[in-house]
């Protein structure tokens, strides 16, 4: 648990952070957000004492952070920054081993830990361990940055706009992966961002700041439904309903029993009860999505072979960890009323339709789902 008590940072006359108090419960993600210059990064850097507070106190699991040596404190707090800051002269494995080395771990303990972490962030150890940072893409580098922060298994993780510098597609993937890792590891996380969608997607609690002062500290749903003041209302925007979809994962609502035809099996296409709402999906023998048949076209008497539309699953499908908001925008972009769901290798898992999305919005399911909770997936 992290507790901030009357935390204040003064730069001359200016108050960068003004009497800030809040608590982050164990295993929760608290997202600090606000316009630039609102003091969110300053707050984050005061927690690991890269910036010394002018007043107020910080407790981490009941220990006053100011009583520890700064170096000692930081070795038990994971730290991820936007510019990643990998050490260019060290290999990926050596980068990840940084804090364990500082803590004096033996190398026979470090090596398995390094590969375990690389696998956790989705980079095969055999391929990546010996690479140098300059051989990595932006997304890969940030994955290594996250692995490095987790290396010594710190209970607390500080992340300063970690996905701010990667392209939107990769950012989306990294967010989904972070949510998955967080479900697994349950760290106490303080996360700084200026992206409200990212905050809504990842946060258990959002701390909205303005000019050094806390405006509202609440669950994302509360921020969306009951903004504390006009600033909060304006900041979260008018599309609260749409934003709420950002909190529901596709795998919570997707239909898994979808009609499918493996490897051009025509009879399966004919046999499939082709409801007008969706598609019959075509896969190869391994189950990888290769195309679909639009049932409306079949109804008009077109032979199945001509109704087949080859698709690239990279573009036409979503991952089960993606948000409903993303699924919806994919449907709108492609002009279809359903979107297939595939795993990392493109194997068909199910689909989500416009009607599923509508139903979710009506039932208020969005209020119950948060990335930090829910053990399945």
């Amino acid at each position, binding site marked *: 648990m992290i507790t901030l008590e009357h935390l204040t940072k003064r730069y001359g006359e200016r108050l960068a952070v003004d009497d800030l108090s809040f608590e982050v419960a164990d295993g929760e993600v608290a997202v600090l957000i606000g316009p630039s210059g609102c003091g969110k990064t300053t707050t984050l850097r005061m927690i690991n004492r*890269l910036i010394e507070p002018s007043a107020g106190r910080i407790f981490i699991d009941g220990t006053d952070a100011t009583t520890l040596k700064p170096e000692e404190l930081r070795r038990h707090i994971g730290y991820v920054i936007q510019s990643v800051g990998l050490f260019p002269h060290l290999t990926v494995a050596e980068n990840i081993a940084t804090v364990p080395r500082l803590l004096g771990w033996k190398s026979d303990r470090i090596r398995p830990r390094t590969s375990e972490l690389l696998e956790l962030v989705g980079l095969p150890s055999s391929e990546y361990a010996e690479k140098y940072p300059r051989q990595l893409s932006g997304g890969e580098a940030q994955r290594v940055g996250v692995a490095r922060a987790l290396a010594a298994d710190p209970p607390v993780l500080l992340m300063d706009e970690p996905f701010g510098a990667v392209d939107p597609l990769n950012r989306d993937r990294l967010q989904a992966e972070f949510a998955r890792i967080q479900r697994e590891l349950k760290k106490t996380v303080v996360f700084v961002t200026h992206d409200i969608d990212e905050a809504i997607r990842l946060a258990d609690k959002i701390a909205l700041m303005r000019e050094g002062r806390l405006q509202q500290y609440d669950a994302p749903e509360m921020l969306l439904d009951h903004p504390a003041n006009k600033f909060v209302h304006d900041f979260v925007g008018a599309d609260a309903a749409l934003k709420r979809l950002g909190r529901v994962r596709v795998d919570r609502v997707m239909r898994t029993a979808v009609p499918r035809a493996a490897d051009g099996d025509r009879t399966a296409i004919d046999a499939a009860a082709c409801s007008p709402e969706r598609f019959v999906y075509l896969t190869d023998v391994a189950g990888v999505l290769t195309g679909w048949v639009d049932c409306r076209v079949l109804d008009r008497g077109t032979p199945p072979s001509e109704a087949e539309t080859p698709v690239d699953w990279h573009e036409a499908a979503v991952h089960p960890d993606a948000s409903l908001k993303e699924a919806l925008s994919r449907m709108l972009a492609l002009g279809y009323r359903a979107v297939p769901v595939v795993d990392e290798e493109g194997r068909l898992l199910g689909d989500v339709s416009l009607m599923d999305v509508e139903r979710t919005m009506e039932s208020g399911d969005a209020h119950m789902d948060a990335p930090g909770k829910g053990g399945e997936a």
Partner: protein
Amino acid sequence: MLACAIVALGALLFGVGHAAENLTHPPARVSVGAGAWLVLVGVAIVWFQGSRLARSRLASTVAWVSAAVLTLSAVVWGGLGTTGIALEYGQQDVFWILTVNHILLTLAGTAIAAVIGVPLGIWAARSRIVRGTAIPFAGLVQTIPSLALFGLLIVPLTLLGLPTIGTVPALIALTLYALLPIVRNTYLGVAGVDEAVVDAGRGMGMSGSELLLRVELPLALPLILEGLRAALVLTVGIAAVMAIAGAQDLGTLVFLGFGVQANDLVLLGALPMVVLAIIADQGMRALEREFVSPGIRPGREEPA
């Protein structure tokens, strides 16, 4: 390309040697003519271009060894031993002492400058005051002509009761000259480390000295070695001038040669200096290949 250079070198050396042998009757001495020198320069250019292109270390090792063997055999069997330079070499029994002196002076000057310059460069990266004084000072020293520096050194040396000619002033002057490239490059290297990398290091709990030893110095190493290389090559040349102030090195032969108008004697001093400078240069590059992390080495490795 390297092979071409070696063949040309062999032909040149043996040709000159042959000519020298066959001409020995009327004139007492045979000096190597301008044409041969020009060809040698041409060979050198081809050589360096070739070794730049040759990727494997083996190729350049073979090239160096065969060049050395060629030169030796040209001296022994090819008549190169009868040229003027070789005759001078035979008469100057102090040649090797002077050469070793030259090497020691150069190494000592650079080493002292490194011991002072590297910490000073690190300090300059930390403190604006040091940066504002140390680097301009080193720059100022560098602009003082070497002979003038000797003059300037006389006063403080006399005050300190130290000899004003010979090895001591030479060493001090060499150290002062070597300081600028070392201080400046160390400063640039350390100050040039990406701020994000330093922030990440501090954020992970590195102390100041851990950050310096594990992150900043390894990242600054290419520039620091480059500074040492520049200092070493520079001092090989300046050490020769130091002969005027009584230092006993290869410069002594050059000045002696000029004094008695013996061109071959001048060359006997000058050629080994060129060789020393090349060895210093190549040696430092080899160190760079050995100690700089492949993650920050310039060139070849493309991002995946």
